[in-house]
């Protein structure tokens, strides 16, 4: 996991969000425009330039009580504004494992 500090020199090639894991349960969360965390990628603050991405990441890093290891992750914004994860890792973080999980109640 790359910390925001390590990402300070990153060049933003497209839209990005700030993502992390929630402290309580490790769930994937995204930084929202109002400075909170949300599990909905569609509700995340999307940055399209390095300065705003860095500002979002730095603010997120301050919130150690609620989120672990915030970092800048690529997204794509579809026509109509729908936000999608920018790579497979982020797709899996958002959607969960790509495999069917065992069903607890059967064998």
């Amino acid at each position: 996991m790359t910390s925001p500090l390590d990402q300070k020199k990153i060049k933003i090639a497209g839209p990005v969000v700030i993502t992390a894991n929630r402290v309580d349960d490790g769930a994937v969360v995204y930084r929202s425009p109002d400075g909170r965390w949300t599990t909905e990628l569609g509700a995340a603050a999307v940055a399209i330039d390095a300065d705003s991405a860095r500002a979002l990441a730095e603010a997120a890093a301050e919130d150690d009580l609620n989120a672990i290891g915030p970092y800048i992750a690529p997204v794509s914004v579809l026509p109509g504004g729908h936000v999608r994860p920018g790579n497979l890792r982020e797709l899996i973080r958002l959607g969960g494992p790509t495999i069917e999980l065992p069903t607890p109640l059967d064998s």
Partner: protein
Amino acid sequence: MYVYDAFDRRLLAERVAEFRDQVARRLSGELTEEEFKPLRLMNGVYLQLHAYMLRIAIPYGTLSTLQLRKLAEIARKYDRGYGHFTTRQNIQFHWIKLAELPDAMAELASVGMHGMQTSGNNVRNITTDQWAGVAPDEIEDPRIWAELIRQHVTLHPEFSFMPRKFKIALGASSRDRAALRIHDMALRLHRNAAGETGFEVMVGGGLGRTPYLAQTIKPFLPKRDVLSYVEAVLRTYNQFGRRDNIWKARIKILVHDLGAEAFAKEVEAEWQGIKDGALALDPAMVAEIASRFRYPDYEKLDDSPPQLAKARRDDRGFDTWMANCVANHKVPGYAVVTLSLKPQGGTPGDCTAVQMDKLADFADRYSFGEIRVGHEQNLALPHVAQRDLPALWRELDAIGLAQTNVNLITDIISCPGLDYCSLANARSIPIAQEITQRFRDLDIQRDLGRLHINISGCINACGHHHVGHIGILGVEKNGEEFYQITLGGKADENATLGTLIGPAVPYAQVADVVEDIAAAYLELRQPPQELFIDTVKRLGVEPFRERVYAAR
């Protein structure tokens, strides 16, 4: 089974109380993540892609039914109803919540289980042959020595902050079922020319980015000296191992850079100073540890009871299971039963709470309340009376644990990969699932014979890809999943690292490549039944490389 004493129980209780306090302070903000992370890791709590993961040690792969039922309860109460058995005789729960971890750990402690030293730069869970104590070719039970070392290194302050993690495995048979030579240190019990029993000591094995097989630095170590010699190896590593570069910090790099002989000399010098001190083993102390391993009260039975032969004749399914999953036991009239956790289309190593509970019932009824966990991510019932095998088979079949693919192409070792793991570059499980679908025909699997596929989702090699007969390593190229294929690796008593056959292939082609390799083998093998690994050894990887890349 090893029976915990009051000291063990107190240690676990204190650890749970300490961790409960640490979690409370993290949740209140008193501890930052930077401060908390090393504390949680010391208790086996990782953060994966979607959730915390708790890794629990199963020392030397031995589980009681009490413990297995507790694992089922943890899976149900604190996780998502299943657990995942790893390649190091651990079990992982992948969806556990931080606030609930102390309660889960307290429940685990009530049955003598914990996650201590399943992470961090210390001596990790000590593993052995999963057939320890029951294998006919075994000299003596290696778990007694594993337990002795476990007690010595648990929370040992000198070995809690080593350059990197340290994995120890033990075996005591002519056949290596514990993958000894891929460990940082391995101890193999054997007899010398004088008929005395002692250890061959191997060091410097490991997979990951720079794979090496362990080298023998002491062919015969008397048993009284095992603790002092382990201490000398750990001290030598602690002193000279690199701390400046995580990729060069494992003992394998030190042994390789110094040379095994020079490393052995350093160990010897250290050892001479301590071998006759407090760590020299008193036979009474060894006997005390041994006395806490309780063995079943076996009946006097004969091998091959008539009803067994009849059952084999009457039911082809049972006969197939007998041939594939049932092994000889050192006690006449008993057998060792392997349970494949590799269902067609399933996740290698996963076991549901329902299966765990039922398996515990079967183990109570048929295996003196004991279960074993192997590094191949399968389970075993170690003490089954041969007369009970037909009844056991019917019960296992009903819960999907009587599969007859042990040691065949679909008995795949796989790490969790990018579906769970934050270190992974590529997915492992779906690759394994696709291969099991392609080779679902058991006749084809049996025709291919013994064939181990090992899959890792990153270079850290938790899926042991370097020592798979067919090794598959996931890498990332420009945001896409690609897979390198190696052939000819093995982790047995003739351990070998596999050879890369060529450029990595994309995700969608991996199962096709495995089919090509299998087809090439069937054409190339010598009659009557040359094993895949022997064909690769005889011909090298070239004919397979040609077959795989000719069409790509």
